[in-house]
């Protein structure tokens, strides 16, 4: 009886689902190969009936989750938190449980998870885009170093002694959720402030920058100190300060001056206090007391911009525009972004002045962004850290390491500053190399110890991220390449579809044998895929990795291993076949929108400094639509993010909307 009623209700649900799919507004049909074809054809009512309702139904429903109550899409999307939990458990393969009588195939699980995710995100977008949380966070280690450098105009990295930060959210170390503070931070900040100021006070050039007044016959030490703090405090706190905010620092100055009668000593003392103040160490935005979302303040926006695109504090010009209250003006905002990226959109007069005054400052700052983003996205930060190859794989010296490390950074920086197509990431006719890396790649031309731009000839076997030695190295074992690791890397990093973890108690794939020749490695992998449990993921993973077998651990080109020719053919689950890196590039270019969508989500997560929510994917989708219409030009991506609701607004504090804004995706909450 109960069952039949549910089936009836679920039929209603299925009709609603079909109609929702039919009238997705403003969504052009995708001409490309979809990521998971099963998701399109997913039959939610059938899945629920078959795999869920046996346990989750009625008053005795497991975990008090009665799925029979969800008789329409409206009811599902009305409880996003519940369905986010369900999503996580299905995505993790924890539900439906493996020990159940009938269990879905991995494809079907993935399809179910994708369906839930799409449904929730779709609903979130239909409600209009909300900004999502804007949590307070401290400067991370590199932001700290860069900010001190800018503030004091010194050329040392004051953040060097701080503990390294971990990553959260979309995988970056600027994520608010993982920027915790340990007791060690207090003493490290004190130490760092002291040594940075010590350096700055002893450097005549730096002194001129921040020590804007010194006592003389017309100025008492205290007046001079007030002048200095007047200039310094707003820059350090990245906002205007009240008159009263100066007083405690002035009191510290006075105290130290009375003791030592030294202007320098007392001034340094007061400035140390500024640099360990939470107003300096944290990026603080005024809470929004309103129930409605509102634009962030001009100075807050200036900091959001500068930490996104430069990884440091705003410069004088950003402060000036913020002070004029113009930064939220879309046209001004756009000009500033282009200026920050090193492009030109300001008046000729301004440009000339800026050039004379500042030279290549912004280039270095944009590099900070390029490096921080790309190294964490690709995992190439491990070069010089965790990646330590065996001697047997070839000579790996510091010049090669440097070349490998900076290739993707400078490459991405050029894409961003020159407004190039993001599809260069998949295939390009240029890259960056130093002398050692150029030799490694067998590229002809004049190269030096510093990396420079390199035009790639047709037959270079390079171009795009997948031809970069750094990428190929960090997706290898220290002593040999692994099609599985590289395939997983492509799925996770480029396509944004990480395979689920292997089921428990299933042994790792046996691919590793001493002296195994490549042919038998392939055979072994194929054999392994004849096991359906393994095949469901490895049929997606392995072929992608085989396409890269022509690159060795250090990314050098090879055509044979141990006298056996390399077989770099791959066949994807949908029957597509390809060969070698060039073939793989075509496979990925055929999925370019998926690649670009993944990249957009990563850059948005980086810009916001937090993990993305369902609502944020509306922003991602809008930006991807714009990118499609603009030849995937990088500025469309950056400007799309900067002009987006989550970047320019802060959420309201209405309790209802607060709930809607705090549920994360892909996160486990105990039932």
């Amino acid at each position, binding site marked *: 009886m109960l069952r039949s009623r549910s089936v009836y209700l679920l039929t209603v649900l299925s009709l609603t689902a079909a109609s929702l799919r039919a009238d997705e507004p403003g969504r052009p049909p995708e001409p490309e190969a979809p990521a998971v074809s099963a998701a399109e054809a997913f039959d939610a009512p059938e899945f629920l009936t078959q795999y869920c309702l046996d346990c989750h139904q009625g008053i005795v429903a497991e975990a008090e989750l009665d799925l029979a109550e969800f008789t329409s899409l409206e009811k599902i999307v009305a409880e996003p938190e519940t369905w986010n939990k369900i999503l996580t458990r299905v995505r*993790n393969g924890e539900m439906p449980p493996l020990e159940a009588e009938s269990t879905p195939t991995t494809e079907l699980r993935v399809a179910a998870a994708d369906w839930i995710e799409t449904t929730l995100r779709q609903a979130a977008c239909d409600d209009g885009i909300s900004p999502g*949380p804007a*949590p*307070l*966070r*401290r400067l991370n280690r590199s932001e700290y170093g860069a900010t001190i450098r800018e503030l004091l105009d010194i050329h040392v990295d004051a953040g060097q002694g701080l*503990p*390294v930060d*971990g*990553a*959260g*959210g979309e*995988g*970056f170390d600027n*994520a608010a*959720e*993982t*920027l*915790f*503070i*340990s*007791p*060690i*931070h*207090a*003493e490290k900040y*004190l130490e760092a402030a002291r040594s940075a100021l010590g350096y700055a006070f002893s450097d005549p050039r730096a002194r001129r920058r921040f020590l804007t007044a010194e006592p003389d016959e017309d100025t008492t030490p205290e007046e001079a100190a007030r002048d200095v703090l007047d200039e310094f405090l707003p820059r350090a706190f990245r906002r205007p300060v009240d008159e009263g905010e100066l007083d405690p*620092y002035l009191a*510290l100055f006075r105290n130290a001056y009375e003791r030592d009668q030294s202007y320098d000593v007392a001034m340094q003392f007061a400035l*140390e*206090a500024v640099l*360990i*103040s*939470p*107003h300096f*160490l*944290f990026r*603080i935005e*005024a*809470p929004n007391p309103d129930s409605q979302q509102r634009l962030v303040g001009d100075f807050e926006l200036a900091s959001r911009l500068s930490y996104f695109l430069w990884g440091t504090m705003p410069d004088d010009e950003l402060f000036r525009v913020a002070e004029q209250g113009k930064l939220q003006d879309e046209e001004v905002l756009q000009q500033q972004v282009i200026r920050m990226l090193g492009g030109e959109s300001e008046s000729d007069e301004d440009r000339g002045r800026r050039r004379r005054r500042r030279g290549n400052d912004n280039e270095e700052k944009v590099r900070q962004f390029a490096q921080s983003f790309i190294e*964490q996205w690709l*995992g190439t*930060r491990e070069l010089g*850290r965790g990646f330590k190859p065996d*001697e047997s794989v070839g000579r790996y010296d510091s010049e090669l390491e440097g070349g490998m490390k900076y290739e993707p950074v400078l490459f991405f920086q050029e894409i961003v500053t020159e407004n190039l197509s993001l599809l260069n990431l998949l295939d390009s006719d240029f890259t960056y190399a130093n002398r050692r890396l150029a030799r490694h790649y067998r590229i002809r031309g004049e190269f030096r110890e510093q990396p420079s731009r390199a035009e790639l000839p047709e037959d270079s076997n390079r171009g795009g991220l997948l031809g970069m030695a750094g990428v190929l190295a960090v997706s290898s*074992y*220290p*002593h040999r390449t692994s099609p599985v690791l590289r395939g*997983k890397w492509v799925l996770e990093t480029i396509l944004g579809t990480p395979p689920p*973890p292997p089921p428990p108690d299933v042994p*790792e794939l046996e691919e*590793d*044998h001493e002296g195994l020749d490549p042919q038998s490695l392939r055979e072994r992998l194929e054999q392994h895929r004849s096991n359906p449990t393994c095949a469901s993921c490895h049929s997606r993973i392995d072929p992608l990795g085989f396409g890269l077998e022509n690159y060795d651990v250090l990314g050098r080109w090879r055509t044979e291993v141990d006298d056996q020719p390399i077989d770099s053919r791959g066949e994807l689950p949908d029957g597509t076949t390809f060969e070698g890196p060039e073939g793989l590039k075509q496979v990925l270019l055929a999925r370019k929108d998926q690649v670009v969508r993944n990249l957009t989500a990563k850059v948005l997560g980086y810009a916001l400094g*937090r*993990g993305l929510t369902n609502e944020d994917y509306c922003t991602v989708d809008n930006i991807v639509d714009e990118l499609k219409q603009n030849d995937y030009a990088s500025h469309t991506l950056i400007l799309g993010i900067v002009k987006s609701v989550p970047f320019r607004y802060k959420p309201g*504090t209405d309790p209802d909307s607060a709930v809607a804004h705090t549920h994360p995706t892909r*996160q*486990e*909450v*105990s039932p």
Partner: protein
Amino acid sequence: MTEPGFPISRRTVLRGAGAALALPWLEAMGPAPARAAAPDTASQPPVRMAVMFMPNGVHADSWTPEKEGRDFELSPTLEPLSSVKDKLLVLSNLWNQGSDFGDGHYVKTSGFLTCTTINKTLGIDLNCNGVSMDQLAVKQSGAPTPLPSLELGTAPVSTGVDTNVGYTRVYGSHISWSGPTNPLAREINPRLVFERLFRAGQPHTDAAQRDRLLLDSVLDDAKQLRGRLGVADRQRVDEYLQAVRSLEERLERATNSGQAAWQPRVPLDPEKKPPADIPRDFAEHVRLMLDMIALAFQSDTTRVSTFMFGNSVSNENFSFLDGVKGGHHSISHHQKEEDKLRQYQLISRWHVEQFAYLLNKLGEMKEGDGTVLDNSMVMFGSGLRDGNSHNPHNLPIVIGGRAGGRLATGQHLSFGKDTPLANLYVSLLEAFGTPVERFADSTGPLPGVLA
């Protein structure tokens, strides 16, 4: 639950409740009055506690010693400990139930000393749902040492989040948790550790007084600020407040010469300063870090330290060992292949050698009638037994040192299958002079461990 000096229910603490606990909890815990471990005079050396965490498990078949009790025979992997055999406690069949969930590594690292199940997350709601055993010891002892504890490692926090299994790698890089949402950052540069020990141990009274003025100003700023923030944001500012406050307490102790004044038991020798850069040679790096623990204990700069040989899933390249080719994690997935097992065993044994190095080093440091080792307990272990199966049953755990005679060393003790690891922690906390009735899923002390 009615121990003197324990203002709130410990159960509440151990169960944890994330953000709700943040600062009020810490305030309520307060600096406990001097307890059992605290009365230390020159004649009665203090007890120290260290934990050495090894990632990726061990070669299981060559780990467990033959025979139990006092007549045990060291296994091939434990053989490097032969010179200190009578100062060892080898423990078999302990397990960590809280970490029997989630994935193969992260939960087994973050939960190693907490015996809890961590939240599965890429970042939001990061929570270990407990406090680690070492930090409970710190909080409860209230020892007047310059540093409450010393967290060390060799690798920086691993980059990124693991979307494959759905955990932030922050979890895999921390074993010490001072609260449910407070992993403790580690120092990995030996020189910086040394300088920190040196600074902490020799505060110049005048400078300390000045620093206190600075910190007071920070505290004022932070207090004002937190009043203006929403609940969620307050937590971060509170963390900073707490960090500043503990630094201030240290300076306060340094400036108030009186009964509580701390004196180094053996002054740090500036000559022992390690090189400025982290050595590229992994073995040398590890030894320098262990030297720092030894110096910190000898000087009494701190009495609690944790050390991570590597982060979860560390693929440290062990090709520097004869007969080993490749990374630690990949070799630990041995699939029962003979050649890989052999390499895995060599790596396990190498870690034990480093453990022996620290024990011997402490054993050479004279203190009263004995050595620093006699007054220490150094636990060595991993959060999983076998790297191929990743399960937290029968964990590889050894303790070195006699904790001032409180540990019944010189034995191999084997317990009933799946005896809680937390029971060991109850016993170790007792030996440290900071007894608790219960820790996480403990069911009582571990019989035979205490002398």
